[in-house]
């Protein structure tokens, strides 16, 4: 397709949706009366509900159904796919990696974000300092993957060959031997996790910084007059005040980490024992043509997200009730 054609198609699509909304609003304006909320509300909701039903509810149920079928999706095999996930050695590695990602990423990213938010709070050039940490959020996971792949780049340790990856250059300067960071397991998974932490710390920093600024000044001032030092201030004032926000940040990053796919795909492709559930889903569904196992992995992802979300909602309720 030529560029012009593409833009034309795009404008057509946008106009089509503008027309749909226009028709809805036009019909709604015919129901001018006072007691006509019902029909108008359903009219407003119609396109949304139709899209959600067709695009989320039906496919979700369909995938759950599919997860009980074999690779070709034709014969019913019960829970075999799930058994495969929990008994095959490859799949257990995938599970182990996923647990590592979900445990390490939220805590380290949140810790870095929190420390930085406290340190630059009310400092000079605060906005600029924050933007530096926050900027990786705007970069795609693919872009971040490439950036870090370059840092981890390996050159064999031979005369006349210079390192082009920063990490190995530092190792060589310290007198060590260059490492294949993305190949040597089990540490390679940690080097992938670093990329996710790099991206997510900015998110944690921004949200926590807002929470810290929301702590009433008189509380901080009263504590200061009582002679509370910086660490006491953190322990007894800051931490309790931002606890609900901390939970939200941890769980949001946790959910994002569970679904991480792009980083693994770009940096190792899931090789060298670095695959995670979200990436394995893609590999099984679209590369290995094992639709049943792919579906089961997707359902597993769904099941893993639920407790995190439920915990989050309960925390939110508790903090509102207080």
């Amino acid at each position, binding site marked *: *397709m030529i560029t012009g054609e593409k*833009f034309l*198609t*795009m404008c057509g*699509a*946008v106009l089509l*949706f*503008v027309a749909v*909304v226009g028709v*809805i*609003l036009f019909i*709604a304006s015919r129901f*001018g009366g006072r007691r006509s*909320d*019902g029909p*108008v*509300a*359903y009219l*407003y909701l119609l396109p*949304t509900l139709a899209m*959600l039903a067709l*695009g*989320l509810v039906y*496919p979700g149920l*369909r995938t759950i159904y*599919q997860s009980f079928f074999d690779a070709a999706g034709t014969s019913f095999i019960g829970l075999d796919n799930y058994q495969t996930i929990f008994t095959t050695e490859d799949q257990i590695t995938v599970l182990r990696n996923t647990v590592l990602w979900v445990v390490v990423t939220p805590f380290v990213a949140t810790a870095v974000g929190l*420390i930085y938010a406290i340190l630059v709070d009310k400092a000079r050039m605060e906005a600029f300092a924050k*933007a530096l940490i926050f*900027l*990786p*959020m*705007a*970069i*795609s996971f693919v872009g971040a993957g490439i*950036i870090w*792949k*370059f840092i981890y780049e390996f050159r064999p340790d031979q005369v006349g060959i*210079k*390192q*082009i990856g*920063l990490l190995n250059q530092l190792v060589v300067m310290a007198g060590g031997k260059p490492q294949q960071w993305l190949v040597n397991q089990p540490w390679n998974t940690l080097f992938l996790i670093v990329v996710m932490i*790099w991206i997510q*710390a*900015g998110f944690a920093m*921004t*949200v926590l910084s*807002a929470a810290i600024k929301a702590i009433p000044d008189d509380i901080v001032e009263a504590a200061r007059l009582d*002679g509370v030092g910086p660490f006491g201030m953190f322990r007894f004032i800051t931490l309790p005040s931002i606890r609900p926000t901390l939970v*939200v940040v941890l769980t949001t990053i946790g959910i994002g980490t569970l*679904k991480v*796919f792009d980083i693994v*795909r770009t940096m190792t*492709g899931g090789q060298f024992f670095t695959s995670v559930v979200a990436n394995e*889903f893609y590999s099984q569904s679209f590369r290995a043509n094992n639709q049943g196992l*792919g579906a089961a*992995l*997707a*359902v597993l*992802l769904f099941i893993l997200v639920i407790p995190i*979300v439920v915990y989050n909602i309960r925390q939110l309720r508790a903090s509102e009730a207080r």
Partner: protein
Amino acid sequence: MTTTSEPLTTTPPVVPTPASPARRARKALTSPLASLIAIVIAVLWTLPTFGLAISSFRPERQIKTTGWWTAFTDPQFTLDNYRSVLGIGENAASSSLSDYFVNSIVITIPSVLIPISLATLAAYAFAWMKFPGRNVLFVAVFALQIVPIQVTLIPLLRLYVDVGVAGTFWPLWLSHSIFALPLAIFLLHNFMREVPAGLLEAARVDGAGHVAIFFRVLLPLLTPALAAFGIFQFLWVWNDLLVALTFAGGGTDVAPITAALANLSGTRGTAWHLLSAGAFVSIIVPVLIFVAMQRYFVRGLLAGSVKG
């Protein structure tokens, strides 16, 4: 500072009060340390991107044989990498990224506009209209936020093939819109509930219908919220890889720049001159949007962080 010690001249000026020098000492200790830690974090977070930026302007041979820090002692810069990834001039790469760049734009704009317009309508209904089943429907939409998109991909792909739109932009537009709707409705609903009810009631007393209220009263107040979500969705769609790989494959017809880069990164891991320049081309649009609209984006982020 010197004047404060004057009233204390009769006592030795070394120990005025027990607490304050201790506190000052602690401050003196922690504050440079604090600055140092902050600077270390800032450098660690900036250096990776900086290194790639420098690399993208270095000649191919230099990139492949020496580290980017060599550019400080032996500066050699060129725009050749950008020329070849964008397909300009003689040394154009066979598959130029400019096609994919155009695709990214074509994918992103409707994927932002469609869910925003639909979600605004739905959020209005949920926030300001009384109808049977409202609470049940709202909770259902809210709950749909937790469905991972992986769960929907294969059945959706089959639907698109059946309808005959596979291989066009439609699967991408529709999928991105659908996946965005639950969060969009939730955020916009929350913003709308913050509008004082009296404002709407007054307009209603004046005889304004739903459409008039929507456009004259709510929309102006909602603009910051719409902008916040719009930027959010823009970044999300622009940076997406999973949806793109599933529905667009890797061809120049519809695949976005992220898919092209992922392919380049997988198959030609040593083509650093193409990867570094390509990564920067893909980064530049979201970063510009981000820097220009940072305030709205942060606002959207703070609203979104309170979701369940």
